[in-house]
């Protein structure tokens, strides 16, 4: 006897319904004959995807929800928040997206696209939720959301929904293929700027830094156990112009300790461009400081 009224059947039918609804907001971006990644239809003429997985090309083909292939151009990329926006040559039918909320332990559904632009589905729980964080590329992400879900390479960049159909954000591979969500709040902040300017401006010092332990002999002078060692400098960049050299260990930025890396990234937002900051560092066993003028980070 087939029982259509038990909770499992209802649960499963609800998932099928959600998948059918998601079909109208996902698309496939063709990378080659055999490879694609997933895009989320943001509005009728633009899709978003995972910046780290989108090759640096000028033209792409996107298979839209109704199965037609449309030419698309990347109009903005932000490695800081891992968001890329592509403008579609022809408009596609889009659905309104409703915002959802991430709760640890709650079910989440991550959708991808197959090569024909049809939805693929993955179900799991929200593994962890945390406060805002900064990526290693310096971008601010409004909330940390980790999923207990495995994705195929081709499914990255698709939408993640809660069970009531609210959008949590876009799926993204983190370290060791952990699946993260770039939250809706971040997407809503970044996409309009990308559509308008093509990029997110950030302050820039022109240095490559690495976290190091302060050598014991200098610990007392430094007053802190760790700092950021300058590994290399961009010629003519703000730090180089201020007289910073490779090997300097930066201890603080405007008085805020570089023990917390976010102290320095938080000071390099778009509004920092043109401002002077005080860099305190160890060189040759003594603590000195220099003023550097922040400029805009050049396009990659």
């Amino acid at each position: 006897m087939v029982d259509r009224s038990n909770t499992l059947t209802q649960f499963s039918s609800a998932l099928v319904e959600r998948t059918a609804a998601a079909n109208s907001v996902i698309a496939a971006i063709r990378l080659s004959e055999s490879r694609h990644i997933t895009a989320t239809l943001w509005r009728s003429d633009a899709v978003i995807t995972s910046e780290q997985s989108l090759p640096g090309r000028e033209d792409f083909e996107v298979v839209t929800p109704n199965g037609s292939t449309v030419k698309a151009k990347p109009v903005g990329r932000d490695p800081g928040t891992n968001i890329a926006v592509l403008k579609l040559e022809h408009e596609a039918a889009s659905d309104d997206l409703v915002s959802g909320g991430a709760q640890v332990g709650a079910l989440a559904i991550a959708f991808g696209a197959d090569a024909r632009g049809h939805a693929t589905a993955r179900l799991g729980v929200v593994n962890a939720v945390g406060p805002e964080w900064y990526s290693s590329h310096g971008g601010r992400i409004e909330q940390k959301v980790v999923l207990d879900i495995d994705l195929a390479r081709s499914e990255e960049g698709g939408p993640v929904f809660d069970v009531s159909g609210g959008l949590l954000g876009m799926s993204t591979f983190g370290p060791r293929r952990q699946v993260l969500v770039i939250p809706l709040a971040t997407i809503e902040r970044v996409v309009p700027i990308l559509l308008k300017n093509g990029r997110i401006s950030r302050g820039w010092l022109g240095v490559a830094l690495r976290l190091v332990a302060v050598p014991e002999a200098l610990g007392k002078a430094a007053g802190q156990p760790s700092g950021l060692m300058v590994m290399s400098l961009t010629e003519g960049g703000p730090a180089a112009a201020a007289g910073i050299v490779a090997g300097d260990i930066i201890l603080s930025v405007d008085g805020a300790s570089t023990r917390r890396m976010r102290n320095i990234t938080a000071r390099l937002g778009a509004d920092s461009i043109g401002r002077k900051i005080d860099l305190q560092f160890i060189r040759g066993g003594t603590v000195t400081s220099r003023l550097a003028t922040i400029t805009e980070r050049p396009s990659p």
Partner: protein
Amino acid sequence: MSAILKVLPNTRLRVALAAPDLWRRRILNEALTNAGYIVVDIGAPADVILADGNCVTDETRPTVILGESDRPTSGSLSRHADAHQIDAALRAVAAGLIVRSPAAKDAGFAPLPESDAQVLLTPRELEVLGGIMGGLTNKLIARQLDISQHTVKFHVESVFRKLGVRTRAGAVAKVLESSHFKTINL
């Protein structure tokens, strides 16, 4: 069939090295020289190019790139590839093959490393670790850093203790799986 029987002359390959980071360039240069390559400038005639990161454009010669690259290239290795992998990749690419390492694309979108609850090495320990990553012996690391072998041994032990490993291979594996050793560009 006759091509396969041709006796291979035992020539040393000329490698043009492109590495903007001084410290990385020194280590790569040393590793290449030790492996018997002739290291030349990027502009000079070469059999194969070794690029550290996204630093060569419009290169038509066979190229091995270390680390993420958005350009199609004949050879693509992890930034943390060891001396054996680099050696194998350079020879393969110079012979017209395509080389990929499975780990090269597994880095992922990562948070800023923070200094709490993580292993931090001193600048000297980092240099010594760089030598270990490059497959150098203590003797070669000592020569490269211009310090005594005894001092190198001391730093190697300290690095092992901090990383919680007992062997050089263990240290390499630890660095590869950890995001704490990443360079941040600001």
